[in-house]
């Protein structure tokens, strides 16, 4: 397959504007500026592009909720707060091809009528922030950003807002709070950001990978995009593979590629001769799949049908040496560490889960602990303010459902079954 999003990855100095232009970059924005904004929204709707941040909401539909009134200030926020463990695709784009993101933001801003865009990049990505900053400077110097870009009536400023260590900022309303200089706790919805977002103004928040798909949709047309992969979640998708495989890395493949194809054909198979035990298909919130489920297609709907989710497309592969109690503990520890503290079940529930999991992992499990974990999951799930607590529960439930006997073994024998 011809790469779309990662087409420039691996080329020398792929981050520089001249090389981006040489590879055909910044043509889509020039075509877009000749179109009517609502036509672009329609094109993106027709392409079937669904948000690559995790929720999988139709991007074109999201844009269409923005009020048309030209007198209202509107904002575009690029969600580059990549923090879901296992995920490093947006970093790959920003480090290596920042201009594809900028071009995507330009087209999006034009389509929704935004004159200011913010890139919310997580604080740890210092290299990526520097690359983006340099790219923005290059774009301004060329007149691609600022007043009347490419000689049109359209003006756009793009700024970088750096996070400083909070996974919750990936939740779109928490991201807005953070840009506004507040503690990043999610806002209640409604009102949705499309009507009252950043500084109370209509705002679109899109993931880096989502925005990076936009130039190609303009250039090659929505039909080309919608024909790639499954009908209901089409397009190219970056899978971030990590864990026990020979060649971990970023793989841009059509949506709907199976787990087996990804691991054995693209990633060179398992790292050692130990057999595969489990795969987390979409970042740690996604319930894991077992070796019996490797023919599952990696797309929004196929994974949902399996009780899991595509999430960010982070595929974590574990072989037989991996302890599922430890995995559950590490993942849960992450969520309780990142809980923002706003709502009761997530704030007080996730650390409780962590404490119990830590005990079991360290050979201090007690009879009834599994039932306690399950009961706490019931009490958290669906009752939290935002999806973070649900993510913690989904991950743990996935582990308990498929590897309950490992937990029981840990409790009964005070040691690990895997090692």
């Amino acid at each position, binding site marked *: 397959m011809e790469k779309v999003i990662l087409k420039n990855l691996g080329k020398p100095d792929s981050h520089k504007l001249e090389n981006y232009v040489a590879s055909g970059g910044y043509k889509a924005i020039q075509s877009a500026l000749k179109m009517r904004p609502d036509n672009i929204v329609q094109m993106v709707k027709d392409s079937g592009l669904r948000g690559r941040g995790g929720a999988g909401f139709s991007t074109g539909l999201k844009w269409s909720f923005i009020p048309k009134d030209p007198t209202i200030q509107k904002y575009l926020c690029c969600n580059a707060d990549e923090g879901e463990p296992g995920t490093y695709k947006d970093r790959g784009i920003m480090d290596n091809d920042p201009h594809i993101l900028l071009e995507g933001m330009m087209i999006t801003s034009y389509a929704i009528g935004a004159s200011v865009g913010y890139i919310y990049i997580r604080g740890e990505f210092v290299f990526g922030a520097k690359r983006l900053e340099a790219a923005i400077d290059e774009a301004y110097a060329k007149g691609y950003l600022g007043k009347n870009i490419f000689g049109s009536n359209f003006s756009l400023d793009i700024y970088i807002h750096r996070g400083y260590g909070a996974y919750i900022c990936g939740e779109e309303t928490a991201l807005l709070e953070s840009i506004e200089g507040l503690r990043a706790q999610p806002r209640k919805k409604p009102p949705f950001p499309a009507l009252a977002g950043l500084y109370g103004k209509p705002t679109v928040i899109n993931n880096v990978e989502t925005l990076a798909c936009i130039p190609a949709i303009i250039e090659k047309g929505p039909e080309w995009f919608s024909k790639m992969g499954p009908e209901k979640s089409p397009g190219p998708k970056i899978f971030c593979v990590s864990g026990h495989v020979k060649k971990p890395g970023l793989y841009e493949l059509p949506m709907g590629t199976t787990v087996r194809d990804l691991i054995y054909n693209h990633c060179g198979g398992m790292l050692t001769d130990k057999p595969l035990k489990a795969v987390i298909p979409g970042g740690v919130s996604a319930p894991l799949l077992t070796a019996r489920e490797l023919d599952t297609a990696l797309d929004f709907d196929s994974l949902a049908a399996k009780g899991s989710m595509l999430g960010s497309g982070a595929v974590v592969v574990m072989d037989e040496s991996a302890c599922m109690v430890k995995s559950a503990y590490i993942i849960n520890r992450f969520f309780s*560490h990142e809980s*923002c*503290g706003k709502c009761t079940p997530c704030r*007080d529930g996730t650390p*409780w889960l962590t404490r119990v999991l830590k005990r079991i992992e360290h050979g201090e499990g007690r009879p009834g602990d599994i039932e306690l974990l399950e009961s706490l999951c019931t009490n958290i799930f669906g009752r939290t303010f935002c999806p973070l607590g649900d993510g913690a529960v989904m991950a743990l439930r996935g582990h308990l459902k498929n590897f309950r006997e490992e937990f029981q073994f840990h409790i009964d024998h005070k040691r690990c079954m895997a090692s």
Partner: protein
Amino acid sequence: MVTVKINGKEITVEDNTLILDAARHAGYEIPTFCYQADLVGIGSCRMCLVEIEGQKKLQPSCVTPVLHGMSINTETSTVMSARASMLEFLLANHALDCPVCDKGGECELQDMVYKYGPHKGRHAEPKFKFQEKDYALSPVIIKNSNRCVQCMKCVRVCREVVGANVLGALGRGDHQEETSFFRHFLDCDQDGNCIEVCPVGCFMRLPYRYKTRPWDLKGADTVCQWCGTGCRMVIEERDGILIRSKAQMGVGLNSETLCARGRFGNDFMTRAERLKTPLVRRFGKLEPASWQEALAVIKENVPSDGERIGGIASPRLTNEELYLFQKLFRTIFGSANIDSSSRWGSDAVEAFAKAASMDAGGVSVFDCMETDTVLIIGSHVSDENPVTDYIIGQGRRAPRIDHTLP
């Protein structure tokens, strides 16, 4: 108007009424920690989750408005078990030092656990402790963060109602702590409204500390006499000693607020130095006397001609007291010479009142907040009438910009 069904009972309420208010209106209690009518809803404590037919998840009734035709259930087993589970989560990291907690007996957490459960604890892990010891945030406010339920009302009332904005939440997750800048002494007027809204023993009044239990107190509803605002409050005593004064949510124009004087400044009432009998001047010296003696002296000295006597009333008296005062002068002394120092403003004030046709009678401070501009003349309202200042401030932050003249 919107018609909805709550637990099968049909009721009609105003548009945009919150489910929580509608349910209460229909006679169903919904527990909550973070909801307070005059604060912006945050929907965070999750105690008020209810079932809305057709929706998969339970919804927070304190931030969800009713929609026409909604069918809401507030007392199903799912809702009840959600309530118990939220309380279980809150207790997981709660200090549970109730025997030595000043809030014991009037603690909302205690009452809710008693009512909704869980009546058996499952959390057997070590708890996270913010501090080993309580710490003072001012000479009158002391803090125990281990008892916090994270309703944020302290921070919100300080920001949204009082306007001081000196409290904030430090940290996140279960380490989140509502406190001051670096936990130092608060740079504020020490009004203690954070204590008033705290549902648990997290923000506490230092002068009240370990003095009594709330069930040993006898209270009386009264009006604060520290300034002309006329805040309603309850003063509570034990064995004839005044222990504390507190506001009541929804009562009086002050609702849940009082100022520092109103909340902490009333102990003079039961101090030994306070005059408890009339004094009569005999041979140039004031001496204690009985009421009978004092009245006799007054009777002796009051002129029979009403024109030769006048009365000056304190501006801090209540309307009822002022009524009695003028009645005394008009009917007993036969005098119409009555005045109050609250009228002794500058000529400018009088002229302004006349020009604005306000001399016919006052309007309430809330009515004033409906206007475009508020002029404050001849008063330093934030010092002299703090609670009036809160009300003006809420208007100002609302943000219908008003001007305050010195």
